[in-house]
């Protein structure tokens, strides 16, 4: 009972603390100086129409690298915790119809995913969204085709290589002394083109691949069946 009361007090307290922000909230009428710089710079310096992409990939590229790392870590953690044994073959079958339809859908989804991350600098979306789309494609495959086995090795490989290349691209900038993750290592190209904005599309693609493989990995790991007798060794 006291517990409940304390919870209510806590929540009300938080409300009271946050209230002044709401009361004093004024919607700004102008962009902050920094945002203005970004908007201008995205056009002038990076030749990337999607300002958010410019910010994510270039200006705050380190964040994005970190973010990919977080996802990578989550994948690792999930894998680390759920040391999977061999999948148990289930007897359930899926109709042939579903199987073919889904494989058709999957190829469409893949194409969509690739489109999203390669056009990240031009239109909404980018590596993450594309990656998720790819992952959802695999999800569909897993759901529809129970015999479908994703090779963790390949996933790992894609994940590792894309991550490595991502870092290496950043490194090139550092070696050229124009800055870590500077997309200007490639020609900036013409504003609005697919192959423009320097290395942004490349980076976003790598991110897409990496995110896609990581998420697929998570899903695959979590979804995979685990025989109940696989008891993980306990340390004591």
């Amino acid at each position: 009972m006291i517990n409940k009361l304390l919870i209510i007090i806590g929540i009300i307290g938080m409300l009271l603390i946050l209230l002044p922000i709401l009361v004093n909230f004024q919607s700004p009428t102008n962009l902050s100086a920094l945002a203005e710089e970004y908007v201008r710079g995205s056009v002038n310096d990076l030749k990337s129409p999607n300002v958010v992409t410019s910010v994510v990939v270039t200006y705050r590229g380190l964040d994005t690298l970190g973010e990919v790392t977080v996802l990578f870590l989550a994948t690792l953690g999930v894998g680390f915790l759920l040391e999977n044994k061999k999948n148990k073959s289930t007897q359930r079958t899926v109709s042939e119809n579903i199987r073919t339809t889904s494989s058709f859908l999957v190829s469409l989804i893949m194409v969509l995913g690739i489109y999203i991350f390669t056009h990240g600098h031009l239109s909404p979306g980018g590596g993450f969204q594309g990656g998720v789309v790819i992952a959802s494609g695999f999800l569909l495959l897993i759901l529809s085709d129970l015999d479908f086995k994703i090779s963790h090795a390949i996933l790992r490989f894609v994940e590792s290589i894309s991550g490595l290349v991502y870092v290496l691209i950043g490194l090139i900038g550092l070696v050229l002394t124009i800055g870590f993750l500077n997309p200007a290592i490639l020609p900036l190209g013409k504003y609005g083109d697919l192959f423009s904005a320097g290395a942004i599309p490349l980076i976003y693609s790598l991110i897409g691949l990496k995110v896609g493989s990581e998420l697929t990995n998570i899903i695959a790991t979590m979804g995979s069946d685990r025989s109940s007798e696989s008891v993980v060794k306990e340390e004591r």
Partner: protein
Amino acid sequence: MIETLILGFILLLIGLYAMLSQKNIIKIILGFSIADTGVHIIIVSLGYLKGRRAPILDSAVDIANSVKEVVDPIPSALVLTAIVIGLATTALMLVFAAELHKRKASFSIDDYKELKW
């Protein structure tokens, strides 16, 4: 926009409340997820400028005058990162929950206090 800001706060508090009051570990994680969504809404609301459009400077936007036409791109960029991190956290939490459940076959958080004091 103040409406979305309020919405974000409400979701945040509901999420927190769920985390504090629910005994089921899945529900607690759901609470976290809701609170996270609330936070994301708050962030995006802060970047919104009335009557402006997305910060994608395609042909529909007057490039020369772009700074007067688009919303703040920074919160969007931040939220992108935050969402992915949120997913990572949630996934890890769930795996922990699953592993815990494997040991004790209980959903209640009250059952996982081997260590105390």
